[in-house]
């Protein structure tokens, strides 16, 4: 069971990748499939590693990320 | 009812307060400063707001903000100041916000001078700002009519959700005449359920003056045009005076209307069959009434304190069926009764042709 959960709204995400630089664990990457608006949203590679710090959500200009923690 | 001797500028201000105007934003300019000076003490007496803005640009956008809250609000200025307000007037018309603007117009173009003139007719009636919009334009010719039209201006603004301009001139603003403040009885107005007052517990609202979608913007324009047609059907107003079957029909608005009344009276003494047609609503222009009135006359003489602005609307109405003549002065030169009479004699002797 992961200690934290990152929920990415794939439709709101525009693939700016700012969260990938903010994540201290480096577990966010741009995915290969585009969303209905033609953007490549981010995805979590390894949720087990997530610290639940919320940095990704904080810096997301499109408010596309929610973070939950135990 | 009690008659009070009042200057036009103060009368319009008092009438505005009595009509429920509670906010005024303006920037000083001659010849209408008495309006703001009066309201600066009068509005606080009724719990209202008087604010001297940093420019007419700011003033008209303050009006926009206050109008969006559903309050009765006005501004006033003269030529150069009203030019600066055109951006805001276009926005008010687009957002369908009610407000009243008084223009005690003066000599133009440019800074011009501070003498009375009617050279802002085009600006008031034909748009002035950008886009396909109209102001409701009312043209009083006496201080009493200025008072009466001020009540009507606030009513029409609310009824049609449209900015209204009262187009006076420096003479009307400065003139002292006895007036009564008869509160007219208007039919009830619909509630301002569009007003922006914070969403409270209801759904949120917004007032904007843009639509980036072509279909949406065209739809807004068509809606505005329907409103303007309705105005034409329902709110057109004019005054006639003189011979029921005139040879020459005199047409003039505002201050010139008073002069033309004297011309009709004096002409009668000289055996002339003259009548006056004085549009009170410049937009909507009383087209049908003028068309009727023009039937059977030998000619129409348009007199204005400009060099031929309303003239174009008169010509459009009669469409060449009747010869239309023009006499005008501008820059603060006032047409005189004797000069107009002389012109009329010339017309009748066919010394003057179109």
């Amino acid at each position: 069971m992961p200690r934290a959960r990152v929920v990415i709204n794939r439709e709101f995400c525009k693939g700016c990748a700012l969260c990938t630089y903010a994540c201290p664990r480096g577990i966010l990457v741009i995915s290969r499939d585009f969303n209905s608006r033609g953007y490549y949203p981010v995805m979590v590679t390894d949720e087990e590693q997530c610290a639940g710090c919320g940095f990704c959500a904080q810096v997301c200009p499109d408010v596309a990320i929610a973070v939950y923690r135990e | 009812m009690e008659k009070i001797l009042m200057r036009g500028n103060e009368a319009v201000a008092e009438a505005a307060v009595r009509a429920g105007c509670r906010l005024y934003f303006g920037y000083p300019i001659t010849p209408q400063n008495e309006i703001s000076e009066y309201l600066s003490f009068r509005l606080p007496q009724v719990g209202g707001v008087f604010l001297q803005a940093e420019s007419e640009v700011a003033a008209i956008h303050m009006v926009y903000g206050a109008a969006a809250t559903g309050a009765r609000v006005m501004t006033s200025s003269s030529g150069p100041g009203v030019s600066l307000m055109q951006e805001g007037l276009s926005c008010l018309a687009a957002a369908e916000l009610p407000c009243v603007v008084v223009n005690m117009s003066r000599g133009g173009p440019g800074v011009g001078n501070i003498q009375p003139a009617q050279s802002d007719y085009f600006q008031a009636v034909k748009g002035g700002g950008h886009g396909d919009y109209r102001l409701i334009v009312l043209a009083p010719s006496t201080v009493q009519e200025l008072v009466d039209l001020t009540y009507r201006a606030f009513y029409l603004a609310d009824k049609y959700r449209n900015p209204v301009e009262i187009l006076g001139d420096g003479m009307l603003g400065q003139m002292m005449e006895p007036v009564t403040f008869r509160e007219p009885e208007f039919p009830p107005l619909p509630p301002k359920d569009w007003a922006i007052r914070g969403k409270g517990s209801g759904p949120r609202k917004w007032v904007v003056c843009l639509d980036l979608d072509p279909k949406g913007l065209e739809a807004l324009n068509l809606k505005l045009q329907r409103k303007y047609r309705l105005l034409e059907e329902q709110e057109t107003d004019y005054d006639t005076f003189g011979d029921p079957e005139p040879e020459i029909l005199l047409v003039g608005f505002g201050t010139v209307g008073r002069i033309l009344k004297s011309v009709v009276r004096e002409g009668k003494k000289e055996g002339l069959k003259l009548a006056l047609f004085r549009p009170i609503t410049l937009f909507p222009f009383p087209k049908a009434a003028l068309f009727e009135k023009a039937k059977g006359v030998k000619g129409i003489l348009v007199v204005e304190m400009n060099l031929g602005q309303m003239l174009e609307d008169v010509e459009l109405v009669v469409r060449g069926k009747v010869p239309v003549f023009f006499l005008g002065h501008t820059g603060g030169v006032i047409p005189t009764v004797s000069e107009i009479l002389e012109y009329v004699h010339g017309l009748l002797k066919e010394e003057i042709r179109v």
Partner: protein
Amino acid sequence: MKVVFERPKTLLEKPFTYCPGCHHGLAQRLIAEVIEELGIADRTIGVGPIGCSVYIYEFIDVDFVVGAHGRAPAIATGIKRSLPDRVVFSYQGDGDIAAIGTAEIIHVANRGELITSFFVNNAVFGMTGGQMAPTTLLGQKTKTTPLGRDPQVHGFPFRLGECLSVLEGSAYIARVALTRPQFIRQAKECIRKAFLTQMEGKGFSLIEILSPCPTNWGMSPKEAVDWLEEKMIPYFPLGELKVKGCNSRETP
């Protein structure tokens, strides 16, 4: 599970219309969050700009008025004078507030108008395609300064926050950036103080938000936030520029 971060309810559930990496959305999220936390959404009225964020009224769940380019401070004045018990804020870009609307913002501040103004400084005109703004840095290339901004020709980048802070009517002025979580936390605190300044009747408040425009800067979103930190912050230092009563310059 505990919520670490969720989209505020006061931000409507629809995707922003801004370019990837643009901070207009982030700024609006913070404003929405503060409005929600202060519990004032039902009595707040926003005034939008003409600029990339013209559709702000589509995103924050409060009543809105949008008028002409640059006139938001005057419109906000009209609203506030008509409804003094409402919370009124305006939101403007640098062209809107510091070029065409300079007179209006200076006088709104000088009157101590009880409104809160948000000023998104991205050093270019975004909506019209990246022309020079009053805040464009010296040497910065834009569509209308192809060789870079030359002070001999175009004058100097305009520090509006400092300019307004010398006026008696302004009560709280701060400059913030949103490039890191720590800055974002500070920005939110400044936004809260700005609204409280208004609600406590202290005077005019303004938050200047440094914001990247990756599209018109011709950079990736990451390059743009780095450029903002390297180039913009030194010229437009962050911190509280004015807190009524004292004139501190500290970062909150």
